């Protein structure tokens, strides 16, 4: 018999009923899965990335299944922050869970404009900066590729909001710890690790890259080891909380990420196959914790890091 367990965790000042959040880009703006998942059961929902103005996104095909993974090249299609606040945020505000708004931009100013607009909205519990967007000023190299630019956008956003500020790290760098250090010093309250891994598929019949956007971001179980390694490295480097993401499907996966140093996790691609994945994980967590000899999820955080008993 599994005893009832308090699954609460904290990511800085943000308290979550449990450590499982829906990952940005895989859960729409909230209503899409409302009939299929009990949103109030989730630790939180990270909404799809929003920009100052609508972004059209990339030509299809936008997804391609790979071995144990999924390549996507959606191109961050979104209706813009104004339409998001008007049409979707009221729904999220009533969903009974924490609301994280993922913010995208092509310039530092664009990120700031989105965050400034969100200041008027009480429903936002945290901001998640997607720094994997191409930086127009730097010829399209993403903000997250370089510690200086990653810190620049983080500091600029920090200056316009007191809200909890999470920065989502790209794995497509040699040393994610350097980016992590830079954004932590620039005022980030937590880090999300990782965003998708750059990849490509070829459509044999058409003799062309399979995705309309040519290359894309790989997600799903294929990238779990990559994500675990980044979380493990980053958690040792910075003093702020880390949210683990990458290929999570089970309560055991959650425990692995927490042992590697994550305070909470996000689930994305697994929802496509089974919309009840997150609820199932939350249901399975108490039994998993018991089997691992942990009294609460917090007991696991960083258990695998060097120097721990």
């Amino acid at each position, binding site marked *: 018999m599994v005893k009832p367990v308090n699954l609460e965790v904290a990511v800085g000042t943000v308290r979550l009923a449990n450590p499982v959040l829906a990952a940005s880009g895989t859960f729409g703006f909230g209503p899409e899965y409302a009939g299929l998942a009990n949103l109030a059961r989730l630790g939180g929902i990270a909404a799809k990335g929003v920009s100052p103005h609508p972004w059209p996104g990339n030509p299809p095909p*936008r997804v391609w299944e790979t071995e144990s993974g999924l390549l996507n090249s959606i191109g961050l299609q979104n209706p813009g922050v104004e339409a998001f606040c008007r049409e979707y945020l009221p729904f999220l505000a009533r969903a009974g869970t924490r609301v994280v708004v993922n913010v995208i931009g092509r310039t530092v100013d664009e990120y700031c404009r989105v965050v400034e607009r969100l200041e008027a909205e009480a429903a936002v519990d945290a901001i998640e900066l997607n720094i994997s967007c191409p930086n127009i000023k730097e010829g399209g190299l993403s903000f997250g590729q370089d510690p200086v630019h990653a810190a620049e956008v983080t500091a600029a956003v920090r200056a316009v909001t007191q809200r909890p500020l999470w920065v989502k790290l790209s794995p497509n760098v040699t040393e994610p710890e350097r980016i992590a250090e830079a954004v932590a010093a620039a005022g980030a309250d937590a880090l999300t690790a990782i965003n998708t891994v750059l990849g490509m598929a070829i459509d044999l019949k058409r003799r062309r890259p399979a995705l309309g956007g040519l290359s894309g971001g790989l997600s799903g*179980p294929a990238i779990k080891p990559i994500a675990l390694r980044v979380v493990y490295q980053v958690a040792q480097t910075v003093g702020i909380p880390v949210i683990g993401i990458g290929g999570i499907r089970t309560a055991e996966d959650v425990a692995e990420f927490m042992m590697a140093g994550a305070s909470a996790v996000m689930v994305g691609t697994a929802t496509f196959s089974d919309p009840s994945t997150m609820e199932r994980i939350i249901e399975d967590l108490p039994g998993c914790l018991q089997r691992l000899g942990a009294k609460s999820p917090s007991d696991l955080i960083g258990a695998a890091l060097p120097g721990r008993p």
Partner: protein
Amino acid sequence: MTQPAIVKAKIHSVRPVAVGHFEMLLESSQLAAADPGQFVHVRTPGTLRRPISFSRLDRVHGRAGILWQVVGAGTGWLSQQPTGGRLDVLGPLGRGFPAPEADRPWCLIGGGVGIPPLFAALQIWGDSVRAPITAVLGARRGDLLVMVDDFRNRIGDVQVTTDDGSQGGQGTVLGPLAHWRARHPNGQIYACGPTPMLAEVAQLCRGVERVYLALEQRMGCGVGACLACVVLAQGKQGPEWRRVCHDGPVFAAKELVW
């Protein structure tokens, strides 16, 4: 409209219907209540589900059919599922065909594995259409044609084309469609098939008021969340992407931008 749900449907039967094509009947009154043109997102061992349109909707016995071509590991797995087992499907999803107008001649244009949703439409609405009904069914070869007998059991005018002439007339469905359109300027046309075929149908039937196309596109979530399966449509401020899974898969031809 039936709300989409995860249904663990009992498999009534699975049978091969053409080379590399299978049809499965699922026992579920919930699915059988779907609109023709809607689809289910079938869970397979892979990362993504597989979207498959309803091939028949038997509301009396509470059975819904799905018909697919084996193209990869997911559809291969599906064709080996045993009768009596359970299949995890998410559905019914999307916007199906509108009901046809009773007094307009009706033409159903199906290409390859696009034929099945048109049979579901004929099954549900055939008796309510008083004007003549025509089906034009095409495939690359005769041994890839599906559901021709099902159509022939319901209507007299079923025309078949194959690219190589191995069954019916040699050529594509567009030839018979052009004849039909000339004879029935006020007709209504429902089509499903490969995207290039649908583009030609839209072109050929420009100016016809009621032309409805069921589209296919690489799909992610199936419920409108991931914005993967988009198609270019006419928006208020110019062309915009719409979701095949949620805004479609059936679109009026005049909504789309080719």
